[in-house]
């Protein structure tokens, strides 16, 4: 099920088309000739567009958010890395066997302060998508991330991780090279890493593949990003595995699954899984990546300021307790 912006944007696209049409020189001239105050009309339309956008995006369903989180125009990790940091010196490789390009990372400066950055990276065009395995890391990608995380720890630099993946690779090579082990080891080692760690879930937070790079002290999530234990498609297939359904019915079921999974940022915040939801520009991050990056940067700086006041022992203790308390259970005395 490919992302389809028209799901969300039909009214919006109409408005945008009208505005673009009115702005064309020919139409302008004609309007002026006909005595229409075209500029006033345009201002009115732009205002209306903003209003529609704001309303529409304030009430996206979980499934619409899923579509948006996967949108091909949505900014990816490297887009934010370029917009947020003063410098970025990319580093390659896991020092074991491979340089998995589904994961990027390197040394950067945040407002001049050295940090280590890692991220999950989807590709923009087909060639880049293939090169980056559609953002689905294999074992090598998680090991590359861990190598850089350990570099951050060794040199006392904060670690910042951008999450955006449909999930870890599940192909033969991934299994052969131990993708499960690589995720598990990341979870264990990063939980005890003696340096501040900030996570930003910017698009798709897909299951164990996302979590494998998403253990940290503060977990930020963009307003329309998603984070889920399983994809809505996978969940629907397990819950209502009726292959004979029509595409519409299947879609309906998938949307129901998205609802049931509570995969939105707002729900993740409610469950205590994320610490802050970062508002997106009106109409979503892809309409104003620069503004979005500025929001993320502010949040990173502010959280980092707080974390840097803690000792490594305090950081690790708090991080352990943070994940330790997640879950929902009732308890009777034994």
């Amino acid at each position, binding site marked *: 099920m490919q992302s389809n912006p028209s799901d969300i944007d039909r009214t919006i696209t109409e408005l945008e088309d009208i505005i673009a049409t009115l702005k064309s020189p020919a139409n302008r001239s004609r309007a002026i000739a006909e005595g229409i105050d075209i500029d006033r009309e345009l201002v009115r339309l732009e205002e209306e567009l903003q209003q529609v956008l704001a309303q529409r995006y304030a009430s996206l369903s979980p499934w619409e958010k899923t579509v948006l989180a996967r949108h091909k125009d949505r900014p990816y990790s490297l887009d934010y890395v370029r917009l947020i940091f003063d410098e970025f010196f990319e580093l390659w490789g896991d020092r074991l066997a491979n340089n998995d390009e589904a994961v990027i990372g390197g040394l950067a400066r945040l407002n001049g302060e050295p940090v280590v950055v890692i991220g999950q990276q989807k590709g923009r065009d087909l060639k880049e998508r293939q090169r980056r395995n559609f953002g689905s890391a294999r074992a090598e990608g998680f090991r590359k991330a861990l190598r850089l995380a350990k570099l951050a720890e060794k040199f006392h630099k904060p670690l910042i991780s951008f999450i955006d993946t449909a999930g*870890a*690779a*599940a*192909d*033969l090579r*991934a*299994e*052969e*090279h*131990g*993708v*499960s*082990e690589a*995720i*598990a*080891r990341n*979870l*264990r*080692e990063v*939980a*005890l890493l003696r340096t501040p760690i900030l996570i930003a879930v910017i698009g798709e937070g897909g*299951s*164990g593949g996302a*979590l*494998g790079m998403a*253990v940290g002290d503060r977990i930020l999530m963009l307003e329309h990003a998603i*984070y*889920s*234990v*399983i994809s809505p498609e996978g*969940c629907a297939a*397990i*819950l209502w595995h009726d292959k004979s359904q029509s595409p519409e019915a299947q879609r309906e079921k998938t949307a129901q699954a998205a609802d*049931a*999974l*509570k*995969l939105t940022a707002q*729900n*993740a915040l409610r*469950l205590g*899984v994320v610490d802050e939801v970062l508002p997106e520009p009106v109409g979503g991050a892809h309409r104003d990546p620069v503004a979005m990056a500025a929001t993320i940067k502010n949040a990173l700086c502010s959280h980092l300021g707080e974390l840097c006041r803690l000792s490594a022992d305090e950081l690790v203790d708090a*991080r*352990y307790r943070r*994940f*330790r308390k*997640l*879950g*929902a*259970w*009732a*308890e*009777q*005395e*034994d």
Partner: protein
Amino acid sequence: MPRNGWFSRRSRTARVMESVPDGIATKCVKCNEILFARDFERNLKVCPKCGHHHRLNARERLAITVDEGSFVAMDEGLTSLDPLGFPEYAEKFQRACANTGQTEAILTGTAAIESHPCVIGVADFSFMGGSMGSVVGERIARAMETGLERRLPVVMFTASGGARMQEGLLALMQMAKTAAAAGKLDRAGVPYIVVLTDPTTGGVYASYACLGDIILAEPGAIVGFAGRRVANQDMGTRLPDNFQTSEFQAEHGMVDRIIPRKEIRPALANLLSFFAEGNGHAI
């Protein structure tokens, strides 16, 4: 099915394999051989013909693993909630409880194996596919913390399809929780031994199951990340016949030893004894 034949003459408590059918005979799920129930039980539910290791529930596993009467359950009072109000979760959960007589997909506690004390966890695939929700994760973390506090080795028998979908993100977070607890054991030098049993996949394999100092596996168990079907559709490559089995994982460096069911108890005793005896030098 009413009890009849040989079983009628045997006391209920003597039966270790409680899930052996009450009839006189059963069929191997792998080779379809007809097996006398008593032989099957004596052979710990391993098919004498093809060697297939049939699944055990948690109680059966405990019975053949730990010293009789040594198991003291922990955290039985922890029970699941339905944090997302997920469709049909409450019903499925109640059914699982009723069908298995368990309260969750894992049993944890302290026990002794050939007199070596340890903390033990035994997952139960018959309870909602052994899926890891909040209570499973919490029991595992507490078991590990008990190991940490008492400096007792931790032994985990895994059997799970992965994280429990019905608890959403909270289930996913149990991966991080159990791995972090395993990290504490690691840093403290408390031995952590995993036994992978059929099946161990998904978020369980990609968290606490992969982190043992020693990882044993039963022969032929399904062990892997995403399931054969997923890997197949993703790649279009021909998968090896043993894809996502214990043997495949061993070939790829993830398993220390594949050990037949009958030898697991002595192997664990051996390992516990090895780790218990300090040479007393260094560090």
